[in-house]
Each structure stands twice: as structure tokens, then as C-alpha cells.
């Protein structure tokens, strides 16, 4: 039967339905998540950064585009908390504004890319045949098609609400690897007995995908979406750094870092606030994702018995 002793234990524990009602899945997940101090810290940091990004602009009297001609390249002070840049713009106002943009783009891209991946992957995997072939071709095509080219050619030519299109482009090129994983999960789910059972009971294919396939890859999708937010922020800032992303007068962490790089040694405040927030945000998101993986994914939990037992 089971091979590892912990699996034996787990099995014996699961034979316990008569005795007491075990806590619901959501509660178990929450409890396991809370047992990770780093993941909880990550979540707290993410929450704080959101507060900073959205409340920050109201805390200071400077707007991100205001220019204070009396203070060029001045260091942090009571007037300008994080100093000013070379044309006298308030670094704090600019940074929180950039953070806001980066966070919104990251969230949007993470959610859109994961939703797309789930749809494409589940359909390709469940239906198989020509649907699968067609969707796999599109997936492969987008994988080898240089996304950098499309984004860098298209986005500098966008005006106004261009960041939205930019975000959608990032999402367009961000779902393929996830879709491949979802596809292979769907293929194995399709042969699982509960899906077969549904099929033999005359449940329709779309209903099977919605009720059985997607919920059973949901834990993977949640984790993946979290990580995707982090990597979307990284792509966004990288492209913006080279002028291919968010366009002036709008700012993002990427454009701010680009502006501050030259002055990083002489006027560190122009560079390090934006750079620091970027790393802290992505790090926090990754820690949350890692904690979620441990909390949701039963296989990763099995592989980490030491940690659970240590508590």
C-alpha cells in the first residue's frame, strides 16, 4: 500500500470520518498558510504597499507632475520627504504614483494571463484532437514569437490610456507556459475516475470543464497567478526602463529607475526608493506564492513533513 510512513499515517488519519468532523478545506489552508511566518510577512508587505500606492498621493501636497523650481536635486527633507529629481519633481509623489501604476499593471496581467491560460489549457487538454492541436500551435507560436518585439514596437506608439493596451500585451505573452501545465493536468484529469463517471452519467463537456476540471486545477492557478503578478511587474519595469512600456508623462517604477540610474551614485534617493520598492514588492509576492503553495498543494505539503511536524 502506501510507501512512506507519513503516507501511512495520512491514510490512517483520513479513515477518521466517523470520529469527528475535520475542519473545512479553506480553514486548513488558512491555518497552514498562517503557519508560515515569511508568507504572512509577505502578505502584510503587499497590503502595506497597496495602501502606500493608493493612499500615498493623498498624503503629500505634491502631485507627481508638479515641479518645484526652488528645489532641484534636493535630498530628502521635511518639504520633499524623499527628495526631488533633477527637474524638481517630488520623488515621493512620483514613486507612489509609479508604484500604483506598476501594481495595477501587475495585478491585471497576472489575473488576465492566468484566466487565459486556464481556458486554453483546460479546453485543449479536455477536448484533445483538433482543438488541442490548434490551441497547442497557437501556444507554441506565441512562445517562440519574440514578445519583446511586439511590445517594444507597439507600446511607444500608444498615447493616453496606452498603459492598458500595454498591460494586455504583457498578458497576451504571459500565459503560455501556464497553459501547457494546465493542459497536461487536464489530460490526466480527463482520465480520472470522477471525470469518467461524470461523462458516463451524461454530463456535458462544458459543464465537466467548469465543474470538475477547472476547480481541480484551481489551487495551481491561484499559486500561479500570484507568481505571475510578480513576474508581470518585473517585465513591466524592464520594458518601461528601456522606454518601451509606460510612456511619459505617466510614470511607473521602471521609468523612475531609468531616470534615476545615472544619478544613482551622486543622488541615491532618485534611484533607490523606486528600486527598493520594486524588489520588496516582488519578493513579498513570491513569498506569498510560496506560502500558498505549501498551504494549498497537498503534494508539496507531503514533501515537507519536517516543517509541519516541527510545529
Amino acid at each position, binding site marked *: 500500500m502506501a510507501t512512506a510512513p507519513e503516507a501511512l499515517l495520512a491514510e490512517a488519519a483520513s479513515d477518521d470520518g466517523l470520529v469527528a468532523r475535520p475542519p473545512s478545506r479553506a480553514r486548513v489552508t488558512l491555518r497552514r498558510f498562517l503557519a508560515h511566518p515569511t508568507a504572512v510577512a509577505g502578505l502584510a508587505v503587499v497590503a502595506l504597499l497597496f495602501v502606500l500606492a493608493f493612499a500615498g498621493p493623498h498624503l503629500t501636497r505634491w502631485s507627481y507632475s508638479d515641479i518645484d523650481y526652488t528645489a532641484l536635486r534636493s535630498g530628502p527633507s521635511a518639504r520633499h520627504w524623499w527628495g526631488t529629481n533633477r527637474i524638481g519633481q517630488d520623488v515621493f509623489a512620483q514613486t507612489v504614483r509609479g508604484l500604483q501604476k506598476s501594481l495595477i499593471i501587475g495585478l491585471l496581467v497576472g489575473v488576465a494571463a492566468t484566466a487565459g491560460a486556464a481556458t486554453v489549457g483546460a479546453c485543449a487538454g479536455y477536448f484533445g484532437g483538433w482543438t488541442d492541436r490548434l490551441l497547442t500551435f497557437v501556444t507554441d507560436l506565441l512562445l517562440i514569437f519574440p514578445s519583446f518585439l511586439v511590445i517594444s514596437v507597439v507600446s511607444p506608439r500608444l498615447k493616453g490610456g496606452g498603459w492598458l493596451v500595454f498591460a494586455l500585451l504583457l498578458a497576451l505573452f504571459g500565459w503560455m507556459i501556464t497553459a501547457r501545465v494546465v493542459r497536461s493536468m487536464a489530460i490526466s484529469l480527463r482520465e480520472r475516475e470522477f471525470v469518467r463517471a461524470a461523462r458516463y452519467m451524461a454530463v*456535458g463537456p462544458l459543464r465537466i470543464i467548469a465543474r470538475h476540471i477547472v476547480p481541480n486545477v484551481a489551487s495551481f492557478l491561484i499559486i500561479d497567478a500570484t507568481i505571475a503578478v510578480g513576474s508581470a511587474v518585473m517585465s513591466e519595469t524592464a520594458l518601461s526602463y528601456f522606454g518601451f512600456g509606460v510612456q511619459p508623462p505617466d510614470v511607473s517604477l521602471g521609468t523612475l529607475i531609468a531616470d534615476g540610474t545615472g544619478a544613482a551614485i551622486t543622488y541615491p534617493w532618485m534611484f533607490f526608493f523606486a528600486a527598493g520598492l520594486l524588489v520588496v514588492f516582488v519578493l513579498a509576492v513570491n513569498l506569498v506564492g510560496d506560502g500558498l503553495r505549501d498551504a494549498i498543494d497537498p503534494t508539496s505539503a507531503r514533501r515537507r513533513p519536517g516543517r509541519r511536524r516541527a510545529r
Partner: protein
Amino acid sequence: MNDPVLDISGLTVDFGGVPAVRGVDLHLGRGEVLGLVGESGSGKSVTALAAMGLLPAAAHVGGSVRLDGAELVGAGDKALSRVRGNRVAMVFQDPLSAFTPVYRIGDQIVEAIRTHQDLSREKAAARAVELLDLVGIPEPRLRAAAFPHEFSGGMRQRAMIAMAVANNPDVLLADEPTTALDVTVQAQILDVLRTARRETGAALLLVSHDLGVIAGMADRVAVMYAGRIVETAPVDALFAAPRMPYTLGLIGAVPRLDADAEGRLEPLVPIPGAPPAPGALPPGCAFAPRCPLAEDRCRETEPLLTAAGRAGKATHPAGAADPAHLAACVRAEEVGALRPLDVFPVPGTDGALRKAGPGGGRPVADDVLRVTDLARTFPLLKGAIVKRRVGSVHAVDGVDLDIRAGEVLGLVGESGSGKSTTLFEILELRPPERGSVEVLGRSVEGLTRRDARALRAGVQIVFQDPMASLDPRLPVGDIVAEPLRAQHADRALVARRVPELLRRVGLEPAHADRFPHEFSGGQRQRIGIARALAVDPRLLILDEPVSALDVSVQAGILNLLLRLRAELGLAYLFVSHDLSVVRHVADRVGVMYLGRTVETGAVAEVFARPLHPYTQALLSAVPLPDPVRERARTRILLPGDPPSPTSRPSGCPFRSRCQVFAALDPGRKERCTTQAPALAPQGGDHTAACHFPAERAVL
């Protein structure tokens, strides 16, 4: 008892405070075979692993394990590694995952040899080939160069045994060595284990959940429950007069292939409830909550394993306590004189429900399923980076079935015989590759979508693995309602039906909002049955419905199925690899080999007078949970593994392993090699596909 070679005393194992083994004493004498029996989670495998110091670091091991007086608990990795594989060797359950997939079998055995013996690579390789030959691997020199995945399950287990005996160990630990294998292969492997013991003189600790295997192999038996030994005795005494109610229940719960003197079957006795979770043991005797004999004192203190009980008069005329028969039960003396049915009353009407007797004949009714000459092939793909079709797998190649309303047909065969493919072909409701399928009197040719939906309401399926067949993300109420919704039942009907169905299979209607993982294995299978019953089908297809369950739970499910069938007039297509189970539930039986039906007939008739040599071998390979009868039997040991279904040999597909064919004179062999035998009537509705059918007693 002579000086024990392996002496385990007071062994405890816990995982972060959760006890898995709670004070186990085992003494293994030189050359002795000790059977360790228990259900999943009883701690038997953990005990074996702890004895070798192979538990993960998270396990906390206490007590003492002495090998010839030398203490192993607490010894360092270096010291242990000198003992492991050298003086104590282990045979694991799943030989596929137990071999490193990237190294050749021969090299892995060579490694075992050279770790402990100062031999040159060439000498060690030669010795590895010898060992492979000893365990009956054909062409050992060639096969030594194969990778583990190129071996069949039985071959891998042979190689595992070869590796274990490579250094002539004093003690062999075998952890469920035959559990993953087919019954004919199991018989071969048990035979190899006997050979290996004869060659090395090693003592054997055989861990198994299968009472039949233990009965045939062990000198002494220890029964484990909830991390403790609850009874230990010489094998005959244990099976004849168990003194612990749990042992008694276990023996009563096993369906048996052999009937009693009047040719009738005992009803199965299920043990109520499920084993306790390791972290939540009841005070007192761990078995008390499930024990009908439990008294107040049982719930207060945990009874010790003692010989206090006076033996029954039959076994020990002197009336003295047998010092080798120990039981952890305060009422051991009384229990010794009881039979399973006395202790575990079969609830309600279950006990009275018997299937039609052998003389009953078939019901006069319509066919609910008729399959004629069904075939299904799959493409065989080969290649790593590049896949190409190199042939066909003839998974199903001529299957005939017919089931009348209210009848139970058992379909038996080993893995790869095409049982599951047959089921899925029927359930897909699409025109078959060859042959015909008629479900509830309708041919599956030319069904419209609407027709198919209506037809699906009449045929439902229950799967083997009750966890895998229930969507873990849906509450039980929704799972049970799924077929109703698929038939567009209205809300009111669903709301009325779900509690009714749950009650019918012995669950609380209040459980409808719980999730599958909150139930025990047996309860999950009940949910699966409730779901199948939701749309009032006429035919239930049961795919190994009890093979994932412990025996004590299995009995309850089988009784439930028998009751439902009587109450609802259902017909079953009951697929199983376990002939004892089929014997217990089915009216008729069909035996499959390599995708074909080779014998059919009434169960009592086929089991009493099997005509096809394969059926005979199959029946002969099933171990009986009765040490006396088991020792007296002669086995038909089939050579090798079933041939691959990729090649379709001319003539009879079974002849390569057939004991009858082997004994024929060349003139008559001719017929088997050229003509494939058809299913031919052998009197009554007994049919067999054999040119030279002959009766042979096998039980």
C-alpha cells in the same frame, strides 16, 4: 523458542507526537517465518522499516531492536549500513518504485554485492546473473542489462528478492511483497520466497494484510491493530481459535473461495466502524469502540499481551495456557470458543440475503446487457523524442457477455486481460470496432445524443478507488445529485432524492454538505454507490468496487451490494481480480484471458468444476485463509507472465503457459497451435474455450 536472531522489544515510533507504533515486541527465531498481519495504518510497515532504521528523520524511534544481541536502534548510519543488505535485507512492496529507474537491474544487484563483499566487478556481475537465475528469471544474462521499467511487475519482484539474498542475510523483511501483483504471479513470488529462504536459511518477517498469504507461509503470526500487537500465536492455533475479537472479525470478514461442507457460503461479517486515527486513540483498548464484546473495563485500561487465556479444549487438552499464544484481550478465554458470527452479528437482513443457489438456474427475464465478440485495439507507440506507431495492442479481442435483469455476472481476469477496457467500451455507448453491444435491449449503433442520455440513466458505474472517483472539490450532496442533474431532474426531485439515497447506503443525510476527504474509504465507496443509484438504473457496472478497501470494510460493502440488489432488483456486472469476492457475490462468472472470454457459467459450477486450464490455474493460485487446507493443496504454477497483447498468436493464446498443452502429445498439440478454440458449450450454460477441457479439483 531458540535464541531469536531478531529481537524487537518495546519498539515505539512516533511522528511528531503522533504514535504509529506503540510498544511492539517481536521475536524472530533463526530460520523462522513470522507473519505480521494488520490493516492499513496499523503500523506493520512502520515496524518493519524501524527494524532496519529506514524511517525518515522525522520519525522518533524508541525501544530496542537487537540483531544477534547487537542493538540497532540509535546506531549510526555507518554502523547500520554495514548491517543492512548484509545481515538483514528487505523486499519492498512496489518493485517499480523500489528500483532506481536510471540504472540497470544487474548493476543494482552488483552494487548490493560489492557494498558488502570484496569482489571484482566481473565476479560480482557473474554472481548477479546467478542470483537472477535462482529467482527464476529467464535468460538472466540478457535480462541483467535491462532497466527496471523493462521488467514486468512479477519479474521486478523476483529481481528484488535476488538483490535481498545477494549477501546471504540472516533475516529477510518482506513488506507486502505480493500486494501489487496478480494472483498467479503472487503464487510464483511466494514460491520464489520459499526458494530464497531454502537457499539462505534466512528467517523471514512477512508483513501482509492478506490472511491467505500468511496462512500459507507463516509458522507464527502476529496481528497488529492501532500500533500494537494484539494477538500472536502459532499459525494453526491463530486461525483455528483466535482469542482477540479483532482477529476473529478479520477472519470472518474475508470472503473465502472454499465453501463449507454443504457447499454453502458463510455470510461475511463486517467489523463495524473504522480503525482509530493514530493521533486520536480511545482510552483503554484501541479496538473497544468497534468491539461488540467490549465492557467497561475495556475502555479504562489497555489490556496487556498475555497468555492468561485458557485455551479451548480442542487445541490444548491439558487445559493449560499455551505460552506461545498471547492475546491482548480481557475476555480472551471466552473469545477462543466463539465463531465470527457469534461476535459480530450481521446487521439487519444482510445475513439472510443469499444469492440464488447453484440449482436456481437463470432468471427468466430480458437481457440488460448483451455483448458479442467485442474487440478494441489501441495503437502501440514507440520512440523517445519521436513517437511512431509500431503495432497494435489488442486490449479486447473477442468478449462475450450477457446479463439478464436482476442477475449478477462476475468478470474475472488478471491485469491486462482487458476487463477495464471492456467496461469502458460498453459505457462509451459508441459503435464498437468489432462485434456488437446491446444495452437494455438497444443496440449502441446509431444512437442520437438524446437516446444516449436516456440510456445512460439505465446503466451506472461504481469505480475501484472511492477517492479518485469522487470529485474532491464537490460536497457529497452535489456528487450524489450529479447524475440526476445530468438527466435534467428538477430541484425538488434532487432535494428529495439525495437524503433518501444517502440513507439507503447507510450514511447520514446530514453528511450531504461534507466533502469526500472527510469520509473513510468504506464510506466513500458508499457515496459512490449512492451516486450510481440516483437515477434508478437497471444495471450497475462495478469496477473492482472493494479492492481498494481493507477486508473489515470490504465485507460491509459487499453485504450492502447484495442487499441493494435484492431490494431494487438490480443487475450487476461485477469486475474483480479477486475470485473469492466474485464467488461471494456473483450468480454467473466470465473468465477473461488476453482480451478474450475463456470460460463462462454459473459461479458454483465453474468454481467447482473449472474446465479451462487457465481458470483452474487461477483458482489454484488463490490462497485460502486456512493453514491446514493451504498446506495440503498442490498448486498449478503458471510459468512466466501473460504474453503481451501486442502480438496475436495463432491458435490458442493461452498455450504458451498452459499446463494441459505442455502434457499433450505432438499430434494433439498441433490443434492448439493452429486453431483458436471458440467458446463451446460444456453442458448446461457452462462454456469454455478449450480444445481439451478436463475437470480438475483445485481447491
